[in-house]
Protein backbone atom coordinates (compact mmCIF):
# COMPACT_ATOMS: atom_id res chain seq x y z
CA UNK A 1 0.00 0.00 0.00
CA UNK A 2 2.57 2.52 0.99
CA UNK A 3 3.93 3.48 -2.40
CA UNK A 4 5.81 6.70 -1.94
CA UNK A 5 8.16 8.93 -3.84
CA UNK A 6 11.15 9.97 -1.76
CA UNK A 7 11.74 13.62 -2.46
CA UNK A 8 14.42 15.92 -1.13
CA UNK A 9 11.91 17.26 1.33
CA UNK A 10 10.63 13.87 2.39
CA UNK A 11 8.15 11.26 1.22
CA UNK A 12 5.28 12.06 -1.17
CA UNK A 13 2.05 10.14 -1.54
CA UNK A 14 0.23 9.76 -4.86
CA UNK A 15 -3.46 10.45 -5.41
CA UNK A 16 -4.88 8.92 -8.57
CA UNK A 17 -8.32 8.89 -10.17
CA UNK A 18 -9.24 7.43 -13.54
CA UNK A 19 -11.83 8.42 -16.12
CA UNK A 20 -12.23 5.45 -18.37
CA UNK A 21 -13.95 5.73 -21.74
CA UNK A 22 -15.32 2.32 -22.67
CA UNK A 23 -16.91 1.79 -26.05
CA UNK A 24 -20.31 0.15 -25.68
CA UNK A 25 -20.83 -3.13 -27.48
CA UNK A 26 -23.81 -2.51 -29.77
CA UNK A 27 -24.76 -2.96 -33.40
CA UNK A 28 -25.68 0.65 -34.06
CA UNK A 29 -24.53 4.00 -32.73
CA UNK A 30 -25.92 5.79 -29.69
CA UNK A 31 -28.10 8.26 -31.58
CA UNK A 32 -28.09 7.00 -35.19
CA UNK A 33 -28.68 3.79 -37.09
CA UNK A 34 -25.16 3.63 -38.54
CA UNK A 35 -23.01 0.64 -37.68
CA UNK A 36 -20.89 0.88 -34.53
CA UNK A 37 -18.49 -1.91 -35.46
CA UNK A 38 -14.77 -1.30 -35.70
CA UNK A 39 -12.80 -0.99 -38.89
CA UNK A 40 -15.15 -0.08 -41.75
CA UNK A 41 -14.09 1.80 -44.88
CA UNK A 42 -13.54 5.51 -44.11
CA UNK A 43 -16.82 7.41 -43.70
CA UNK A 44 -18.86 4.35 -44.66
CA UNK A 45 -20.41 3.98 -41.21
CA UNK A 46 -21.78 7.49 -41.14
CA UNK A 47 -25.37 8.69 -41.07
CA UNK A 48 -26.27 12.31 -41.75
CA UNK A 49 -26.94 12.54 -38.03
CA UNK A 50 -23.35 11.54 -37.22
CA UNK A 51 -22.05 14.03 -39.78
CA UNK A 52 -24.05 16.84 -38.14
CA UNK A 53 -26.07 17.72 -41.21
CA UNK A 54 -28.72 20.44 -40.92
CA UNK A 55 -31.97 19.30 -39.37
CA UNK A 56 -30.71 15.88 -38.37
CA UNK A 57 -31.88 14.69 -34.97
CA UNK A 58 -30.65 12.13 -32.43
CA UNK A 59 -32.81 9.17 -31.40
CA UNK A 60 -31.47 7.01 -28.60
CA UNK A 61 -30.50 3.35 -29.01
CA UNK A 62 -32.17 1.29 -26.26
CA UNK A 63 -29.46 -1.37 -26.23
CA UNK A 64 -26.82 1.23 -25.36
CA UNK A 65 -28.96 2.24 -22.40
CA UNK A 66 -29.30 -1.42 -21.38
CA UNK A 67 -25.52 -1.86 -21.63
CA UNK A 68 -24.94 1.15 -19.36
CA UNK A 69 -27.42 -0.26 -16.85
CA UNK A 70 -25.77 -3.71 -16.95
CA UNK A 71 -22.41 -2.09 -16.39
CA UNK A 72 -23.77 -0.05 -13.52
CA UNK A 73 -25.14 -3.21 -11.94
CA UNK A 74 -21.79 -4.93 -12.46
CA UNK A 75 -20.08 -2.06 -10.64
CA UNK A 76 -22.49 -2.41 -7.71
CA UNK A 77 -23.71 1.09 -8.51
CA UNK A 78 -26.93 3.03 -8.14
CA UNK A 79 -28.99 3.09 -11.33
CA UNK A 80 -30.71 6.41 -11.90
CA UNK A 81 -34.18 5.81 -13.32
CA UNK A 82 -34.27 9.37 -14.61
CA UNK A 83 -31.22 10.74 -16.35
CA UNK A 84 -30.71 13.21 -19.15
CA UNK A 85 -28.43 14.31 -21.90
CA UNK A 86 -26.52 17.55 -22.10
CA UNK A 87 -24.50 19.15 -24.83
CA UNK A 88 -20.81 19.77 -24.25
CA UNK A 89 -19.96 22.53 -26.68
CA UNK A 90 -16.58 22.84 -28.35
CA UNK A 91 -15.18 23.02 -31.83
CA UNK A 92 -13.05 20.30 -33.31
CA UNK A 93 -12.64 18.93 -36.81
CA UNK A 94 -13.86 15.48 -35.87
CA UNK A 95 -16.78 16.72 -33.76
CA UNK A 96 -19.38 17.32 -36.49
CA UNK A 97 -22.19 18.82 -34.42
CA UNK A 98 -19.93 21.27 -32.64
CA UNK A 99 -20.96 19.58 -29.41
CA UNK A 100 -20.75 16.19 -27.80
CA UNK A 101 -23.97 14.75 -26.45
CA UNK A 102 -23.09 13.57 -22.97
CA UNK A 103 -24.61 13.30 -19.52
CA UNK A 104 -23.27 16.03 -17.30
CA UNK A 105 -25.71 16.92 -14.56
CA UNK A 106 -27.76 13.70 -14.43
CA UNK A 107 -25.84 10.54 -15.34
CA UNK A 108 -27.57 7.19 -15.74
CA UNK A 109 -25.36 5.49 -13.15
CA UNK A 110 -24.30 6.90 -9.78
CA UNK A 111 -21.91 5.72 -7.09
CA UNK A 112 -20.45 2.22 -7.20
CA UNK A 113 -17.51 0.13 -6.04
CA UNK A 114 -14.76 -1.91 -7.66
CA UNK A 115 -12.65 -4.26 -5.52
CA UNK A 116 -9.07 -4.69 -6.60
CA UNK A 117 -6.54 -7.20 -5.34
CA UNK A 118 -2.88 -6.29 -5.17
CA UNK A 119 0.11 -8.57 -5.62
CA UNK A 120 0.41 -8.69 -1.85
CA UNK A 121 -3.08 -10.19 -1.71
CA UNK A 122 -4.46 -7.07 -0.10
CA UNK A 123 -7.94 -6.12 -1.33
CA UNK A 124 -8.84 -2.44 -1.80
CA UNK A 125 -12.20 -0.83 -2.54
CA UNK A 126 -12.05 1.79 -5.28
CA UNK A 127 -15.07 4.08 -5.44
CA UNK A 128 -16.81 4.72 -8.74
CA UNK A 129 -18.22 8.24 -8.82
CA UNK A 130 -20.49 7.80 -11.81
CA UNK A 131 -20.96 6.27 -15.23
CA UNK A 132 -22.53 8.22 -18.05
CA UNK A 133 -23.35 7.65 -21.69
CA UNK A 134 -21.92 9.89 -24.38
CA UNK A 135 -20.97 10.01 -28.04
CA UNK A 136 -17.52 9.30 -29.35
CA UNK A 137 -15.93 11.76 -31.77
CA UNK A 138 -14.60 10.94 -35.22
CA UNK A 139 -10.97 10.39 -36.06
CA UNK A 140 -8.51 13.00 -37.34
CA UNK A 141 -5.45 11.70 -39.15
CA UNK A 142 -2.53 14.07 -39.23
CA UNK A 143 0.10 12.05 -41.03
CA UNK A 144 -1.48 11.43 -44.43
CA UNK A 145 -0.68 14.77 -46.01
CA UNK A 146 1.87 17.53 -45.41
CA UNK A 147 -0.68 20.33 -45.07
CA UNK A 148 -3.97 18.64 -44.28
CA UNK A 149 -5.60 16.51 -41.65
CA UNK A 150 -8.04 13.86 -42.85
CA UNK A 151 -11.34 13.28 -41.12
CA UNK A 152 -13.08 9.92 -40.81
CA UNK A 153 -16.42 10.02 -39.00
CA UNK A 154 -16.97 6.27 -38.62
CA UNK A 155 -16.56 6.49 -34.88
CA UNK A 156 -18.49 9.73 -34.54
CA UNK A 157 -21.56 8.94 -32.51
CA UNK A 158 -20.52 5.50 -31.29
CA UNK A 159 -21.71 5.02 -27.71
CA UNK A 160 -19.18 5.39 -24.94
CA UNK A 161 -19.52 4.83 -21.24
CA UNK A 162 -17.41 7.23 -19.26
CA UNK A 163 -16.64 5.58 -15.93
CA UNK A 164 -15.23 8.02 -13.41
CA UNK A 165 -13.47 6.75 -10.30
CA UNK A 166 -12.99 8.48 -7.00
CA UNK A 167 -9.41 9.65 -6.34
CA UNK A 168 -8.95 6.46 -4.34
CA UNK A 169 -5.80 4.99 -5.85
CA UNK A 170 -2.39 5.54 -4.27
CA UNK A 171 0.07 3.79 -6.57
CA UNK A 172 0.64 2.90 -10.21
CA UNK A 173 0.01 -0.70 -9.25
CA UNK A 174 -3.43 0.13 -7.87
CA UNK A 175 -4.33 2.08 -10.98
CA UNK A 176 -3.20 -0.83 -13.13
CA UNK A 177 -5.16 -3.30 -11.03
CA UNK A 178 -8.26 -1.10 -11.19
CA UNK A 179 -8.07 -0.76 -14.93
CA UNK A 180 -7.55 -4.50 -15.40
CA UNK A 181 -10.37 -5.30 -13.05
CA UNK A 182 -12.68 -2.87 -14.78
CA UNK A 183 -11.82 -4.42 -18.12
CA UNK A 184 -12.51 -7.89 -16.75
CA UNK A 185 -15.92 -6.84 -15.43
CA UNK A 186 -16.89 -5.13 -18.69
CA UNK A 187 -15.82 -8.13 -20.72
CA UNK A 188 -17.78 -10.50 -18.48
CA UNK A 189 -20.82 -8.28 -18.87
CA UNK A 190 -20.32 -8.11 -22.62
CA UNK A 191 -20.77 -4.35 -22.48
CA UNK A 192 -17.30 -3.42 -23.78
CA UNK A 193 -14.75 -5.61 -25.49
CA UNK A 194 -11.96 -3.94 -23.50
CA UNK A 195 -9.68 -3.84 -26.51
CA UNK A 196 -7.27 -1.04 -25.69
CA UNK A 197 -5.28 -1.39 -28.93
CA UNK A 198 -8.36 -0.62 -31.02
CA UNK A 199 -9.16 2.18 -28.62
CA UNK A 200 -12.34 0.66 -27.26
CA UNK A 201 -11.02 1.41 -23.79
CA UNK A 202 -9.04 4.60 -23.05
CA UNK A 203 -8.16 6.16 -19.75
CA UNK A 204 -7.78 9.76 -18.67
CA UNK A 205 -5.57 9.72 -15.60
CA UNK A 206 -5.80 12.34 -12.87
CA UNK A 207 -2.65 12.54 -10.81
CA UNK A 208 -1.61 14.66 -7.87
CA UNK A 209 0.93 14.28 -5.09
CA UNK A 210 0.83 15.31 -1.46
CA UNK A 211 2.58 14.95 1.84
CA UNK A 212 1.03 12.49 4.25
CA UNK A 213 -2.07 13.86 5.95
CA UNK A 214 -2.50 16.79 3.56
CA UNK A 215 -5.56 17.80 1.58
CA UNK A 216 -5.42 17.16 -2.17
CA UNK A 217 -3.01 19.32 -4.13
CA UNK A 218 -3.50 20.47 -7.74
CA UNK A 219 -3.98 17.60 -10.16
CA UNK A 220 -3.14 17.16 -13.81
CA UNK A 221 -5.16 15.10 -16.24
CA UNK A 222 -3.24 12.87 -18.63
CA UNK A 223 -5.52 12.29 -21.60
CA UNK A 224 -6.23 9.18 -23.60
CA UNK A 225 -3.71 6.68 -22.34
CA UNK A 226 -4.29 3.43 -24.20
CA UNK A 227 -2.68 0.60 -22.26
CA UNK A 228 -2.44 -0.54 -18.67
CA UNK A 229 1.32 -0.40 -18.83
CA UNK A 230 1.32 3.17 -20.12
CA UNK A 231 -1.16 4.22 -17.46
CA UNK A 232 1.20 2.94 -14.79
CA UNK A 233 4.25 4.52 -16.40
CA UNK A 234 2.48 7.82 -17.00
CA UNK A 235 1.45 8.03 -13.35
CA UNK A 236 4.98 7.45 -12.21
CA UNK A 237 6.63 10.02 -14.44
CA UNK A 238 3.90 12.57 -13.87
CA UNK A 239 4.09 12.16 -10.10
CA UNK A 240 7.87 12.63 -10.21
CA UNK A 241 7.47 15.72 -12.34
CA UNK A 242 5.01 17.17 -9.83
CA UNK A 243 7.25 16.35 -6.87
CA UNK A 244 10.10 18.18 -8.56
CA UNK A 245 7.93 21.23 -9.19
CA UNK A 246 6.66 21.39 -5.60
CA UNK A 247 10.12 20.85 -4.19
CA UNK A 248 11.57 23.58 -6.36
CA UNK A 249 9.16 25.94 -4.63
CA UNK A 250 6.89 26.37 -7.66
CA UNK A 251 3.28 25.22 -8.09
CA UNK A 252 1.74 22.61 -10.32
CA UNK A 253 -0.72 24.10 -12.82
CA UNK A 254 -4.01 22.30 -13.30
CA UNK A 255 -3.87 21.27 -16.94
CA UNK A 256 -4.38 18.57 -19.48
CA UNK A 257 -1.28 16.62 -20.47
CA UNK A 258 -0.30 13.92 -22.92
CA UNK A 259 1.89 10.91 -22.14
CA UNK A 260 4.66 10.22 -24.62
CA UNK A 261 5.79 6.61 -24.07
CA UNK A 262 8.77 6.98 -26.41
CA UNK A 263 10.27 9.73 -24.26
CA UNK A 264 8.68 8.53 -21.05
CA UNK A 265 7.40 12.00 -20.21
CA UNK A 266 4.15 13.89 -20.05
CA UNK A 267 3.70 17.21 -21.79
CA UNK A 268 1.14 19.96 -21.74
CA UNK A 269 -1.65 19.98 -24.37
CA UNK A 270 -1.70 23.72 -24.87
CA UNK A 271 -3.88 23.40 -27.96
CA UNK A 272 -6.85 22.55 -25.74
CA UNK A 273 -6.33 25.56 -23.49
CA UNK A 274 -8.88 27.64 -25.37
CA UNK A 275 -11.74 25.21 -25.11
CA UNK A 276 -12.31 25.24 -21.40
CA UNK A 277 -15.79 26.72 -21.30
CA UNK A 278 -17.97 23.84 -22.50
CA UNK A 279 -21.27 25.59 -21.89
CA UNK A 280 -23.09 22.41 -20.91
CA UNK A 281 -26.86 22.66 -21.19
CA UNK A 282 -29.69 20.12 -21.61
CA UNK A 283 -29.88 18.89 -25.20
CA UNK A 284 -33.20 20.27 -26.43
CA UNK A 285 -33.41 17.60 -29.13
CA UNK A 286 -33.76 14.92 -26.46
CA UNK A 287 -36.17 14.31 -23.62
CA UNK A 288 -35.35 12.92 -20.18
CA UNK A 289 -34.26 9.28 -20.26
CA UNK A 290 -36.73 7.52 -18.00
CA UNK A 291 -36.38 3.79 -17.34
CA UNK A 292 -38.45 1.40 -15.24
CA UNK A 293 -37.17 -0.36 -12.12
CA UNK A 294 -38.78 -3.54 -13.45
CA UNK A 295 -36.59 -3.36 -16.55
CA UNK A 296 -33.50 -2.79 -14.43
CA UNK A 297 -34.47 -5.84 -12.34
CA UNK A 298 -34.90 -7.87 -15.49
CA UNK A 299 -31.45 -6.87 -16.71
CA UNK A 300 -30.02 -7.67 -13.28
CA UNK A 301 -31.58 -11.11 -13.31
CA UNK A 302 -29.90 -11.88 -16.61
CA UNK A 303 -26.41 -10.73 -15.65
CA UNK A 304 -23.69 -13.35 -15.88
CA UNK A 305 -21.74 -14.43 -12.78
CA UNK A 306 -19.11 -11.74 -12.26
CA UNK A 307 -15.42 -12.32 -11.50
CA UNK A 308 -15.57 -11.71 -7.74
CA UNK A 309 -18.45 -14.15 -7.27
CA UNK A 310 -16.85 -16.65 -9.57
CA UNK A 311 -13.57 -16.44 -7.72
CA UNK A 312 -15.27 -17.09 -4.38
CA UNK A 313 -17.11 -20.04 -5.85
CA UNK A 314 -13.94 -21.52 -7.39
CA UNK A 315 -12.20 -21.34 -4.04
CA UNK A 316 -15.03 -23.04 -2.20
CA UNK A 317 -16.14 -25.52 -4.89
CA UNK A 318 -12.77 -26.58 -6.22
CA UNK A 319 -10.57 -26.01 -3.20
CA UNK A 320 -8.02 -23.94 -5.05
CA UNK A 321 -5.90 -21.13 -3.58
CA UNK A 322 -7.15 -17.53 -3.89
CA UNK A 323 -4.25 -16.65 -6.14
CA UNK A 324 -5.12 -19.39 -8.63
CA UNK A 325 -8.78 -18.41 -8.56
CA UNK A 326 -7.94 -14.77 -9.20
CA UNK A 327 -5.85 -15.61 -12.25
CA UNK A 328 -8.43 -18.05 -13.57
CA UNK A 329 -11.33 -15.56 -13.43
CA UNK A 330 -9.40 -12.71 -15.06
CA UNK A 331 -10.80 -13.75 -18.42
CA UNK A 332 -14.19 -15.31 -18.85
CA UNK A 333 -12.68 -17.72 -21.36
CA UNK A 334 -10.10 -19.02 -18.86
CA UNK A 335 -12.74 -19.37 -16.18
CA UNK A 336 -14.99 -21.32 -18.53
CA UNK A 337 -12.05 -23.47 -19.64
CA UNK A 338 -11.18 -24.17 -16.06
CA UNK A 339 -14.70 -25.13 -15.08
CA UNK A 340 -14.96 -27.62 -17.92
CA UNK A 341 -11.57 -29.00 -16.95
CA UNK A 342 -12.27 -29.21 -13.23
CA UNK A 343 -15.76 -30.67 -13.45
CA UNK A 344 -15.57 -34.23 -12.08
CA UNK A 345 -11.80 -33.97 -11.61
CA UNK A 346 -9.43 -32.84 -8.91
CA UNK A 347 -9.84 -29.04 -8.94
CA UNK A 348 -6.40 -28.37 -7.55
CA UNK A 349 -4.70 -30.60 -10.13
CA UNK A 350 -6.79 -28.95 -12.85
CA UNK A 351 -5.69 -25.44 -11.85
CA UNK A 352 -2.06 -26.54 -11.44
CA UNK A 353 -1.93 -28.04 -14.89
CA UNK A 354 -3.84 -25.21 -16.49
CA UNK A 355 -1.92 -22.33 -14.91
CA UNK A 356 1.38 -24.18 -15.22
CA UNK A 357 2.22 -26.27 -18.23
CA UNK A 358 -0.86 -25.47 -20.30
CA UNK A 359 -0.48 -21.66 -20.06
CA UNK A 360 3.27 -22.03 -20.61
CA UNK A 361 2.50 -24.04 -23.73
CA UNK A 362 0.08 -21.41 -25.01
CA UNK A 363 2.70 -18.76 -24.37
CA UNK A 364 5.28 -20.72 -26.28
CA UNK A 365 2.88 -21.00 -29.22
CA UNK A 366 1.94 -17.33 -28.93
CA UNK A 367 -1.71 -18.25 -28.57
CA UNK A 368 -4.53 -17.24 -26.27
CA UNK A 369 -7.07 -19.44 -24.60
CA UNK A 370 -9.62 -18.75 -27.36
CA UNK A 371 -7.24 -20.09 -30.01
CA UNK A 372 -5.84 -22.93 -27.93
CA UNK A 373 -4.99 -25.99 -30.03
CA UNK A 374 -6.65 -28.23 -27.45
CA UNK A 375 -9.98 -27.92 -25.73
CA UNK A 376 -10.64 -28.21 -22.02
CA UNK A 377 -12.08 -31.67 -22.61
CA UNK A 378 -8.88 -32.72 -24.37
CA UNK A 379 -6.72 -31.41 -21.56
CA UNK A 380 -9.07 -33.20 -19.19
CA UNK A 381 -8.19 -36.45 -20.97
CA UNK A 382 -4.58 -35.94 -19.90
CA UNK A 383 -5.60 -35.34 -16.29
CA UNK A 384 -7.66 -38.51 -16.37
CA UNK A 385 -4.65 -40.56 -17.51
CA UNK A 386 -2.66 -39.16 -14.60
CA UNK A 387 -5.47 -39.84 -12.14
CA UNK A 388 -5.90 -43.45 -13.15
CA UNK A 389 -2.12 -43.92 -13.13
CA UNK A 390 -1.88 -44.66 -16.83
CA UNK A 391 0.96 -42.16 -17.00
CA UNK A 392 3.00 -40.43 -14.37
CA UNK A 393 3.39 -36.68 -13.97
CA UNK A 394 6.73 -36.46 -15.67
CA UNK A 395 5.54 -38.28 -18.76
CA UNK A 396 2.38 -36.19 -18.67
CA UNK A 397 4.42 -33.02 -19.26
CA UNK A 398 5.88 -34.60 -22.34
CA UNK A 399 2.46 -35.76 -23.51
CA UNK A 400 0.99 -32.28 -23.03
CA UNK A 401 3.74 -30.77 -25.13
CA UNK A 402 2.90 -33.18 -27.91
CA UNK A 403 -0.83 -32.46 -27.51
CA UNK A 404 -0.21 -28.73 -27.85
CA UNK A 405 1.80 -29.33 -30.98
CA UNK A 406 -0.56 -31.73 -32.69
CA UNK A 407 -3.93 -31.12 -31.07
CA UNK A 408 -4.24 -34.87 -30.57
CA UNK A 409 -5.71 -36.50 -27.48
CA UNK A 410 -3.50 -37.62 -24.60
CA UNK A 411 -4.61 -41.23 -25.01
CA UNK A 412 -3.61 -41.28 -28.67
CA UNK A 413 -0.18 -39.84 -27.94
CA UNK A 414 0.47 -42.18 -25.01
CA UNK A 415 -0.59 -45.11 -27.13
CA UNK A 416 1.48 -44.11 -30.17
CA UNK A 417 4.59 -43.35 -28.18
CA UNK A 418 4.15 -46.25 -25.80
CA UNK A 419 4.32 -43.99 -22.76
CA UNK A 420 2.09 -46.02 -20.50
CA UNK A 421 3.34 -46.23 -16.96
CA UNK A 422 4.79 -49.53 -15.88
CA UNK A 423 2.99 -50.91 -12.79
CA UNK A 424 4.09 -54.50 -13.21
CA UNK A 425 5.98 -55.10 -9.93
CA UNK A 426 7.98 -57.87 -11.53
CA UNK A 427 9.41 -55.49 -14.14
CA UNK A 428 10.05 -52.87 -11.50
CA UNK A 429 11.78 -55.33 -9.17
CA UNK A 430 13.97 -56.49 -12.04
CA UNK A 431 14.98 -52.91 -12.83
CA UNK A 432 15.75 -52.21 -9.19
CA UNK A 433 17.84 -55.35 -8.91
CA UNK A 434 19.79 -54.40 -12.01
CA UNK A 435 20.51 -50.89 -10.74
CA UNK A 436 21.62 -52.10 -7.31
CA UNK A 437 23.83 -54.67 -8.91
CA UNK A 438 25.43 -52.12 -11.19
CA UNK A 439 26.24 -49.73 -8.32
CA UNK A 440 27.73 -51.72 -5.46
CA UNK A 441 29.82 -48.74 -4.23
CA UNK A 442 26.75 -46.48 -3.93
CA UNK A 443 24.85 -49.25 -2.22
CA UNK A 444 27.62 -49.53 0.34
CA UNK A 445 27.63 -45.79 0.95
CA UNK A 446 23.87 -45.86 1.46
CA UNK A 447 24.07 -48.65 3.90
CA UNK A 448 26.74 -46.77 5.87
CA UNK A 449 24.22 -43.97 6.41
CA UNK A 450 24.30 -41.77 3.32
CA UNK A 451 20.53 -41.86 2.96
CA UNK A 452 20.47 -39.03 0.48
CA UNK A 453 21.47 -41.60 -2.12
CA UNK A 454 17.90 -42.91 -2.12
CA UNK A 455 17.05 -40.33 -4.73
CA UNK A 456 19.95 -41.46 -6.85
CA UNK A 457 18.56 -44.99 -6.98
CA UNK A 458 15.08 -43.73 -7.88
CA UNK A 459 16.53 -41.70 -10.71
CA UNK A 460 18.56 -44.59 -12.03
CA UNK A 461 15.58 -46.94 -11.95
CA UNK A 462 13.32 -44.43 -13.73
CA UNK A 463 16.03 -43.85 -16.29
CA UNK A 464 16.33 -47.58 -16.85
CA UNK A 465 12.56 -47.74 -17.36
CA UNK A 466 12.58 -44.78 -19.81
CA UNK A 467 10.65 -42.69 -17.29
CA UNK A 468 7.59 -44.91 -17.41
CA UNK A 469 7.85 -46.53 -14.03
CA UNK A 470 5.10 -45.78 -11.58
CA UNK A 471 6.92 -43.51 -9.15
CA UNK A 472 5.14 -44.86 -6.05
CA UNK A 473 5.82 -48.47 -6.92
CA UNK A 474 9.42 -47.71 -7.81
CA UNK A 475 9.94 -46.02 -4.43
CA UNK A 476 8.35 -48.87 -2.64
CA UNK A 477 10.45 -51.50 -4.42
CA UNK A 478 13.70 -49.64 -3.73
CA UNK A 479 12.82 -49.26 -0.05
CA UNK A 480 12.05 -52.93 0.13
CA UNK A 481 15.31 -54.01 -1.53
CA UNK A 482 17.53 -51.70 0.41
Amino acid sequence: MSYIIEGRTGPWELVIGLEVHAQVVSNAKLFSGASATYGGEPNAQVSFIDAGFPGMLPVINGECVAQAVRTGLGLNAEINLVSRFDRKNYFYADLPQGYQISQFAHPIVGKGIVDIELESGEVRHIGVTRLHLEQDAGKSMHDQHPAESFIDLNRAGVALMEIVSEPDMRSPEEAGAYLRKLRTILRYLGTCDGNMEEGSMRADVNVSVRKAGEEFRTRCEIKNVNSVRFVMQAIEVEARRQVEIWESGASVDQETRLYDPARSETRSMRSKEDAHDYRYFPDPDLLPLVIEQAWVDQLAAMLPELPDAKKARFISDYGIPAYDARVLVMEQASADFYETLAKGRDGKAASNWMLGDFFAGLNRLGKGIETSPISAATLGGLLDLIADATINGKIAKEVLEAMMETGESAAAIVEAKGLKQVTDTGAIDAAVDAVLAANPDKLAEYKSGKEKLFGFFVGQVMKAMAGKGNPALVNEAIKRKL
Partner: protein
Amino acid sequence: MASSSSPLDPAVVRRIARLARIRLADEDVAQLQTELGSIIGWIEQLDEVDVSGVDPLANIGAASMTLRDDVVTDGDQVDAVLANAPARSGPFFTVPKVVE
Protein backbone atom coordinates in the same frame (compact mmCIF):
# COMPACT_ATOMS: atom_id res chain seq x y z
CA MET B 1 -27.58 39.28 -12.34
CA ALA B 2 -24.18 40.10 -13.54
CA SER B 3 -24.28 43.49 -15.13
CA SER B 4 -26.46 46.52 -15.78
CA SER B 5 -27.52 47.79 -19.16
CA SER B 6 -24.17 49.41 -19.71
CA PRO B 7 -22.05 48.08 -22.57
CA LEU B 8 -20.28 44.80 -22.03
CA ASP B 9 -16.59 44.77 -21.36
CA PRO B 10 -14.87 44.43 -24.75
CA ALA B 11 -12.78 41.59 -23.33
CA VAL B 12 -15.99 39.68 -22.66
CA VAL B 13 -17.21 40.28 -26.22
CA ARG B 14 -13.91 39.01 -27.57
CA ARG B 15 -13.95 36.00 -25.31
CA ILE B 16 -17.43 34.85 -26.31
CA ALA B 17 -16.63 35.49 -29.97
CA ARG B 18 -13.58 33.26 -29.57
CA LEU B 19 -15.70 30.58 -27.89
CA ALA B 20 -18.22 30.85 -30.73
CA ARG B 21 -15.45 30.82 -33.34
CA ILE B 22 -16.56 34.03 -35.01
CA ARG B 23 -13.83 36.47 -36.05
CA LEU B 24 -14.62 40.02 -35.06
CA ALA B 25 -13.16 43.21 -36.44
CA ASP B 26 -12.41 45.94 -33.90
CA GLU B 27 -15.37 48.03 -34.98
CA ASP B 28 -17.61 44.96 -34.57
CA VAL B 29 -16.50 44.65 -30.98
CA ALA B 30 -17.57 48.20 -30.21
CA GLN B 31 -20.94 47.75 -31.88
CA LEU B 32 -21.62 44.40 -30.24
CA GLN B 33 -20.68 45.83 -26.87
CA THR B 34 -23.55 48.25 -27.19
CA GLU B 35 -26.04 45.89 -28.82
CA LEU B 36 -25.47 42.93 -26.55
CA GLY B 37 -25.25 45.28 -23.59
CA SER B 38 -28.66 46.67 -24.36
CA ILE B 39 -30.20 43.20 -24.84
CA ILE B 40 -28.67 42.01 -21.59
CA GLY B 41 -29.91 45.11 -19.80
CA TRP B 42 -33.39 44.40 -21.12
CA ILE B 43 -33.46 40.71 -20.18
CA GLU B 44 -32.44 41.59 -16.67
CA GLN B 45 -36.11 42.41 -16.07
CA LEU B 46 -36.21 38.71 -15.08
CA ASP B 47 -34.52 39.77 -11.84
CA GLU B 48 -37.91 40.69 -10.50
CA VAL B 49 -39.39 37.18 -10.97
CA ASP B 50 -39.36 34.99 -7.87
CA VAL B 51 -38.35 31.51 -9.03
CA SER B 52 -37.59 29.97 -5.66
CA GLY B 53 -38.60 26.33 -5.59
CA VAL B 54 -39.27 26.26 -9.33
CA ASP B 55 -37.75 23.41 -11.35
CA PRO B 56 -36.15 24.51 -14.62
CA LEU B 57 -38.07 23.52 -17.75
CA ALA B 58 -36.03 22.28 -20.69
CA ASN B 59 -38.63 20.51 -22.81
CA ILE B 60 -42.29 20.77 -23.61
CA GLY B 61 -44.29 17.81 -24.80
CA ALA B 62 -43.62 14.15 -24.16
CA ALA B 63 -42.24 13.28 -20.74
CA SER B 64 -39.58 10.84 -21.84
CA MET B 65 -37.84 9.29 -24.79
CA THR B 66 -38.75 6.20 -26.71
CA LEU B 67 -35.83 3.79 -27.04
CA ARG B 68 -34.78 2.81 -30.56
CA ASP B 69 -34.00 -0.81 -31.48
CA ASP B 70 -30.32 -1.66 -31.87
CA VAL B 71 -30.43 -2.28 -35.59
CA VAL B 72 -28.14 -0.93 -38.30
CA THR B 73 -30.44 1.04 -40.59
CA ASP B 74 -28.13 3.76 -41.85
CA GLY B 75 -24.69 4.42 -43.31
CA ASP B 76 -23.01 2.97 -46.40
CA GLN B 77 -23.37 6.25 -48.27
CA VAL B 78 -19.87 7.66 -48.50
CA ASP B 79 -20.70 9.61 -51.66
CA ALA B 80 -23.77 11.29 -50.17
CA VAL B 81 -21.93 12.09 -46.95
CA LEU B 82 -19.09 13.74 -48.86
CA ALA B 83 -21.09 15.24 -51.74
CA ASN B 84 -21.34 18.67 -50.10
CA ALA B 85 -17.79 18.73 -48.73
CA PRO B 86 -15.98 22.00 -49.50
CA ALA B 87 -12.71 20.02 -49.43
CA ARG B 88 -12.01 16.31 -49.47
CA SER B 89 -9.40 13.76 -50.32
CA GLY B 90 -10.80 10.43 -51.46
CA PRO B 91 -13.18 9.22 -48.78
CA PHE B 92 -12.02 11.78 -46.21
CA PHE B 93 -13.04 15.31 -45.32
CA THR B 94 -9.96 17.48 -45.09
CA VAL B 95 -9.04 20.47 -42.97
CA PRO B 96 -5.83 22.44 -42.59
CA LYS B 97 -3.35 20.31 -40.70
CA VAL B 98 -4.04 20.19 -36.99
CA VAL B 99 -1.00 20.17 -34.75
CA GLU B 100 -1.75 18.58 -31.39
